[in-house]
């Protein structure tokens, strides 16, 4: 099963190496990992999607806690969360497919952020399933380039 861990860490050089090294050494599987600054510039947030049963996740959490650079580890899979991913996709278009592609972008509530003679660059946010679905839809037209951020998530508020 996939678990999403939100890990608050010091914003220092070498922190990413410590975290990724821990995962490598203990043979935990990282599915995706994003790092960003938080409202506190000395703290970064790592959103790590990791594969494993509850026992593995418990060990991952405990081992992460042992690193002095780790402030907090929350397993977002255990609570209600809003999660999003951002994708930038460059798709091949011809004069006869352009309109079709633009309509699909609209249905998925994506945005066209760049346009060339024979291609479109589309920005899309959403959960993982939506992005996967959009990519499947675009594939027949020809995907020239695809960049995904990996998942970020926050817990839903109590009310």
């Amino acid at each position: 099963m996939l678990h999403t861990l939100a890990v608050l860490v010091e914003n220092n050089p070498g922190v990413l190496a410590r975290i990724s090294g821990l995962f490598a050494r203990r043979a935990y599987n990282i599915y995706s990992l994003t790092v960003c600054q938080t409202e506190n510039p000395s703290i970064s947030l790592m959103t790590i999607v990791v594969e494993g049963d509850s026992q593995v996740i418990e060990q991952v959490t405990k081992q992460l806690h042992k690193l002095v650079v780790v402030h907090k580890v929350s397993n977002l899979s255990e609570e209600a969360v809003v999660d999003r991913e951002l994708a930038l996709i460059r798709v091949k278009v011809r004069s006869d497919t352009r309109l079709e592609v633009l309509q699909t972008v609209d249905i998925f509530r994506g945005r066209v952020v760049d346009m060339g003679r024979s291609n479109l660059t589309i920005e899309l946010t959403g959960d993982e399933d939506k992005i996967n679905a959009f990519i499947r839809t675009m594939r027949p037209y020809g995907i020239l380039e695809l960049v995904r951020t990996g998942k970020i998530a926050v817990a839903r508020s109590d009310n």
Partner: protein
Amino acid sequence: MNKLIDGTLIARDPETVWEDEESLSATAGIGAKVLLDVLANEGVEVIFGYPGGSLLTLYDALLDSPIRHVLPRHEQTCVHAADAYARISGKVGVCMATSGPGAANLVTGIANAYMDSIPIVIITGQVPTHLLGSDSFQEVDITGMTFPITKHSYLVKDAEDIPRIVKEAFHIAGTGRPGPVLIDLPKNIIAAEVTDPRPPKVSLKSYKFFTKGNSGQVEEAAKALAQSKKPVVYAGGGVITSGAGPVLRELIEKADIPVVTTLMGIGSVPSGHTNLLGMVGMHGTITANLAVNDCDLLIAVGVRFDDRVTSGLKHRFATKAKVIHIDIDPAEIGKVIRTQIPIVGDARLVLEELFQKVIPPDIPEWWEQLRRWQKEYPLQYEQDGHLNPQTILETMGKVGGENAIVTTDVGQHQMWAAQFYPVRSSRQFITSAGLGTMGFGFPAAIGAQIAKPDRLVFLVTGDGSFQMNIQELATTVQYQLPIKIILMNNGVLGMVRQWQKMFYNERFSQIQLHANPDFIKVAEAYGIPGIRVESPEQVETALQKALAIPGPVLIDFIISPDEVVLPMVPPGKAITEILGGNV
């Protein structure tokens, strides 16, 4: 400097410096000087170090520091000696080496300290900050190389951080589950001016550890023990680190329950204690192993269920038992086996609380069974007139007195020492347990003798291990360390040979040490007297003669390469498949 916080003895109180500024002798100056001042304020009395290019400024400042410096003949010795110094004294050990090869030579020793949870601070030189990452002369990324084997590490980029970092390093190394902390110091940083040498109060929001166990859980443990019919205590290195030996002894006496120890736990209960069943695991006693296999309650204290104890068979280890696991590191709970009553906390504090609540269980049948096993399967060896390693160890115990410190290398001699040397107290038996580092013993003996100049120190080693750090004979002479070197010389790599004999159809591969020197002559070349012993009758006389000589002595015991360590649980086999006892 020690202080009680919440009833726990914290090796170093981060607040002391502020409460008593008089004791702070650090004044402004260059990084090197401030570093040494802060180390002195931390109570550091000795550094095991080896100089080099990037540390020249530090070695210059050392001339004006009260801290003693010990210069071995290899950086690996610096770190092992600091490790043993910490094990013996209970203080944080300190070692130092230059950038590049110096730092790289520390790696094995850092891993050794990490595996056995030993508090040391490692200081490494580094190339100047403007050359970092440029593959410059004697540059290695030592913080990167040691991420997986340090509790924490620092690469100092600003000299003003030195006081804070040193303070934090000692705090992290010495508290919670102890471990090695590395400080990497670029050459220009130790030469830069530090305007404020006062370390701030340690404030590490992300570093937490529990000391007092959850009382409800301790209550549960006491209840489980009261109801148990076949309890066993399984005591490890955490008992020794936390100073829980005495309360463990009181507990097993009050409840009258049996105890087994790990290799790291040797000395937590004195050898010969009627409740002690011996060491558990691959070369443990048959009774200890059968007891763990058959028990209905396993009280694990300061242990990590190492595969040398469980044979890596978590589903076949203590299967009938409810498990109480007491450990300061939450990550150890449930890492290897499922635990019914986890208690995260300091072993001493938890055992003290358990001692208050304990109701002795009624277990006469269990004791009868254990005594039957002990009678049936004693730890024994054949005395057939040739020189047995076991005889040497038993005689050492007799002539060495209660206080002798024993350090060992790794291999057959180590296991014989664990089985047959009568260890009476905590911090008396020093061995490389988790990493199993050949070459550890001699540096460890040096660290131990520096920590306790007045105590007798035995180094138990083999001809393989000894030659991994034999150059330290010079250090022994230079610092006049009266270490008694017990060399068990069989001309082979004995433990490897034993495995090839037992599990590889006697196909012996690369275990002959054909060109061994005459060790007596080698010792004599350094000015160390040597004695050769070839028969059992000579053992006691030779040991007494060695003890009568004030300085270091080497005794070359010629033993047979056919000696094996028994009993033995073959790797990957359950305890019941133990060899050497006809179970």
